[in-house]
C-alpha cells in the first residue's frame, strides 16, 4: 500500500516536472540579456559541466585552459578568454541557439527542442542542457578572462 502510494507520488512528480515548461527568453541583438528563468549560475558547477564529456560535450569540439584534460577537440575556437571576448548576454545566446547567429554552425543549440530531425527517443523534447545548467556554464565562461 505504502509502496503503491509512493510510486503514485513519484509518477505525479515526474509528470509535474515534465509539464513544467522550460523558461522562455527574449533575444535582443546578438544577446539574451536576462538569465534563463531568472536563475543565478554557479561557476564551479559550470566548470564541471564543461569538462564532462557526456553532459556538456564541449571538449568534443573545443579546447580550453584545462591542462589536466588530455584529449580536447580542434573543431571550434579555444574557450580561453571567452569571458573577455563576449558579454554574459552574448554568451547566453551562443549557448541557447548558436544557429540563430550562423545557420551553418557546428555548435549545437543547447536549449532548443524544436526544428530538429529524428532525435533519439531518450532525448526527444529535451534540451541538451537545462536552463540551470546553461546559467552555470555561462557563470563559468565569464571567469575565463584571459
Amino acid at each position, binding site marked *: 500500500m505504502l509502496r503503491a502510494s509512493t510510486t503514485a507520488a513519484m509518477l505525479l512528480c515526474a509528470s509535474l516536472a515534465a509539464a513544467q515548461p522550460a523558461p522562455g527568453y527574449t533575444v535582443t541583438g546578438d544577446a539574451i540579456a536576462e538569465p534563463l528563468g531568472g536563475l543565478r549560475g554557479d561557476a564551479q558547477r559550470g566548470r564541471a559541466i564543461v569538462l564532462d564529456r557526456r553532459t556538456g560535450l564541449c571538449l*568534443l569540439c573545443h579546447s580550453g585552459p584545462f591542462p589536466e584534460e588530455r584529449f*580536447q577537440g580542434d573543431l571550434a575556437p579555444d574557450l580561453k578568454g571567452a569571458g573577455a571576448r563576449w558579454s554574459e548576454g552574448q554568451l547566453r545566446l551562443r549557448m541557447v541557439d548558436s544557429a540563430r547567429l550562423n545557420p551553418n554552425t*557546428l555548435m*549545437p543549440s543547447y536549449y*532548443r527542442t524544436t526544428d*530538429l530531425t*529524428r532525435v*533519439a527517443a*531518450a*532525448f526527444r523534447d529535451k534540451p541538451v542542457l537545462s536552463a540551470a545548467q546553461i546559467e552555470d556554464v555561462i557563470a563559468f565562461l565569464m571567469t575565463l578572462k584571459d
Partner: protein
Amino acid sequence: MKARAAALARLALATLLVTALPRAVSQAPGEPPAGKQSGYAWMARETRAIQDDALANPGMLSVLDGEALWARKAGTAGLACADCHGDARLSMKGVATRFPAFDARLGRPLNLEQRINACRTERQAAPALRYESRDLLALTAYVARQSHGLPIAPPADARLRPHVEAGRAEYLRRQGQLNLSCAQCHDGLADRKLVGNPITQGHPTGYPIYRLEWQAVGSLQRRLRNCMAGVRAEPHPYGAAEAVNLEAYLMWRARGMPLETPAVRP
C-alpha cells in the same frame, strides 16, 4: 645514442606522414571529396600493420569462418552456397564492389547482407541470419574478401538512382539532438580532431571491419548506427530502407576506391 637518433628519425617521419595527410578540400555539397582517402590513411602505423598482415588481422578469422560456411549445407533444401555458386574465389570476385544492388523481384535495393539472406531463405530454405550475427558477418566478410583490392563500382542502374539520391539527402540533412549532418563531419571536418580522434572522409571501403573499440567484427550498418547515436539521433533499424539508401550513396561517393575487407579501424 643510436637508439635516440633512430627515435628522432621515426618521429620526423611520423610528423611528415601526418602533415602529408590530405587536407579537406572544398567541394559541392554531397559531392565526393577531390582527393578521396580511405580511413586507412589516418590510422596509426601499428593499426595499418595489423590490417595488412593476413595472419594478424582479426577480421581474417571471420573470413575463414565464412569460407567454412560457404561449403556447408544449410536449410531444408540441403544446399550449400558452393552448390550453386561453386568456387567463391571465381564466382564472387567483384560482387561486393557492386552492392547495394537493385533486386527486381523485391523492387528495392539490397545490401550484401540482405542478398546473402535472400539466398538463404529462397534457395536454401533456411532461416534468415540475424544482423550482426557471427555467421552473417562471416559470410559477408568472405564474399567481400573476394573483391579485395578491386575498385568500388556501383552499377549504372536507373532503378538505383532514386535510392542513391535519397541516401545523399539523408547524408546532407542535420539530425539528432545535436543537430549535425554526416556531411558536416565527413566533408567539412575530415582531417580535424573530435576529442583527439581524427575524423576521416567516412568511406565504406573496408566492411565488415574489425573495430578495436568493439573488439569484434561489425557491419557498415553498425558503424552508421554509431555515428547516429553520437549525434543523439534515432539509429535506423538494421537493414531499414533508409540505411540501405545511405549505404548506396556512400558506395557511390566512394566509387573507384579499392575494397579493403576486412579492414581494421580504431
